[in-house]
């Protein structure tokens, strides 16, 4: 087994009267065990310039790494919008099963568990304000799975 860790630190000295520092380190284990996850897509980079929603991670796609990700396992997903902040209006909407989870503005990242399931692909669509936008956007992503 492998030892893989994910650490988060959230810091602010002025969002409250006292300094906020939240820090946590998780070991990436297979579901319900203390056995380390042994598979990963590795870090990937995708550049696109389309206003249409497209599939970034296709759940269960035959012949792909994603075919191994099934419900009740322990996949973890990291996605970062590599673009700069720009004028602050452009973002990549991240969706699962076409439901928007959150918006990655330039330089934002997210890290979350992915249960998967039929149709529960991870999709992306880019926007400028409330309008779909074809500005070239680059994301980096990585999946850890069993």
């Amino acid at each position, binding site marked *: 087994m492998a030892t893989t860790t994910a650490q988060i630190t959230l810091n602010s000295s002025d*969002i409250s009267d006292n300094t*906020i520092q939240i820090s946590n380190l998780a070991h990436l*284990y297979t579901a*319900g065990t203390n056995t380390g996850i042994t598979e990963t897509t590795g870090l990937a980079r995708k550049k696109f310039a389309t206003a249409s929603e497209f599939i970034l991670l296709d759940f269960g796609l035959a012949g792909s790494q994603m075919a191994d990700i099934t419900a009740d396992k322990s996949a973890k997903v990291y996605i970062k919008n590599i673009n700069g902040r720009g004028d602050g209006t452009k973002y990549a909407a991240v969706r699962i099963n076409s439901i928007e989870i959150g918006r990655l503005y330039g330089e934002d990242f*997210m*890290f979350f568990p992915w249960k998967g399931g039929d149709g529960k692909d991870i999709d992306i669509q880019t926007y400028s304000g409330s309008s779909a936008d074809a500005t070239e956007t680059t994301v980096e992503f990585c999946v850890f799975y069993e």
Partner: protein
Amino acid sequence: MATTTATITLSSADLLSDNLSLSASMNLYKGGTTDTGLDEIKYSRAIIPTGTNFVLISESSALNATGSNYVYIVNKNIDSTDYVTVSVRSEVIGHLYAGDWMFIPFSAATTATAGTDDPSGDDSDIAIQANTHECIVEYALFHDGETLLTHTSS
């Protein structure tokens, strides 16, 4: 405005044939701005009993205004079989096993039907359900305002 940073480090010495060391940092800004930091936070700890899907973070029209909020959730249990199921807008995202954490932007978009439990008409609650055993979770919401409820006696 406040300055809040989030830093993630993903590392492994033996998952791949070479070291994996990935690190990224970001500032938590208000949506639609270039450098205006979020200046509101809610940081909580809760014991989640098994058997019911609870609203952990309730959507509100104010939260939805800029679509730029960030949520951190950690499962503080120790037993590796204990997990919570996290949903956003009724869509199951995944399971947080003991010790696992997640950090996501949280937006509420589009449509739903307004109701007494859903004033904005946008049911984008973040829900959580403990499965095998009650779970202690800590969670933080960095946000750009939320709808405060008017006291019934006012």
